[in-house]
C-alpha cells in the first residue's frame, strides 16, 4: 500500500498536466510504516528522454543522488517514483516493467488525457531479482481522506 497526503498526490498529478504532452517524472520520499510506503515529500525531476518525451521518461541518476542526500538529512528515503502517461492508461507498460529496477518501491502512474489528469494508480515492484520482478496493483490510501479506487 502507498500512503500519501492529498496535497502530495495532487502535486504529482499536476506535474503531469504541466508537462503534457510529455511524460513527467519524479521521486516519492518517505518511510516505511508497517507494510505501507508512507510518502512524506514529492520531488519533481527532469525527463532526460528529450528524444522521446511523449512516451518515455528517464531520471538522471545525478539528480536522484542529490535528492537522496537531501532526503537523508530529513530522515526520509526513496519509497517510489511517479510518472505520467499522456493520452494513455494509468497502467504499467512492458517498457515500464522492463526498465523498473527498484524492487520494493512503488511506481505511481497518472493518465493525463488532453492535458487533464485522469486516473492515478500505484504498483509495487515485487519480486526478488530482475528475473522474477513483477508489478502488483496496490491501494493508494490518501491520508485524511477515503482511499481512491483504481481507475
Amino acid at each position, binding site marked *: 500500500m502507498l500512503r500519501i497526503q492529498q496535497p502530495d498526490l495532487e502535486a504529482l498529478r499536476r506535474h503531469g498536466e504541466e508537462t503534457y504532452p510529455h*511524460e513527467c*517524472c519524479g*521521486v516519492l520520499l518517505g518511510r516505511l510504516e508497517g507494510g505501507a510506503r508512507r510518502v512524506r515529500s514529492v520531488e519533481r525531476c527532469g525527463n532526460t*528522454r528529450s528524444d*522521446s518525451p511523449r*512516451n*518515455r*521518461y*528517464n*531520471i538522471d*541518476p*545525478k539528480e*536522484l*543522488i*542529490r535528492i*537522496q542526500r537531501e532526503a*537523508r538529512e530529513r530522515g526520509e*528515503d*526513496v*519509497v517510489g*517514483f511517479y*510518472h505520467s*502517461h*499522456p493520452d*494513455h*492508461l494509468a497502467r*504499467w*507498460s512492458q*517498457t*515500464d*516493467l*522492463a*526498465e*523498473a*529496477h*527498484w*524492487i*520494493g*518501491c512503488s*511506481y505511481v502512474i497518472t493518465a493525463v488525457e488532453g492535458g487533464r489528469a485522469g486516473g492515478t494508480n500505484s504498483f509495487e515492484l515485487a519480486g526478488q*531479482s*530482475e528475473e522474477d520482478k513483477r508489478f502488483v496493483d496496490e491501494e493508494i490510501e490518501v491520508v485524511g481522506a477515503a482511499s481512491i479506487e483504481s481507475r
Partner: protein
Amino acid sequence: MKIHIPTPLRLYADKKDTVEVPGKTVAEGLANLTAHYSDLRRHLYTDEGKLRAFVNIYLNDEDIRYLQQENTPVKEGDSLSIVPSIAGGEA
C-alpha cells in the same frame, strides 16, 4: 570509501544504507563490497562479470562511465553511489 546502497539492494547488505570499504579504485571498492556481501554480486553483475547495464555507479557526483570506469581512482573521503536506473514509458 563510503558506498551508498540503494533501497532494493539493502536486503543483501545487512539492511545497511551505507557501507564503508577499503580500496584505491572503484573496482576494488566494489570487489570488497561483494566479497563481504556476496549476495549483492548477482544483483550488480552479469554472469560474465560485467556491471549490469541498468546499474549506474557514481563517484561523488560523476558517472564512472565518463571517468575511468571501474579503474577510476578513489581518494579518502570519496563516496560511491549505486543507482539503479529509473526509467520507463507508456509505449
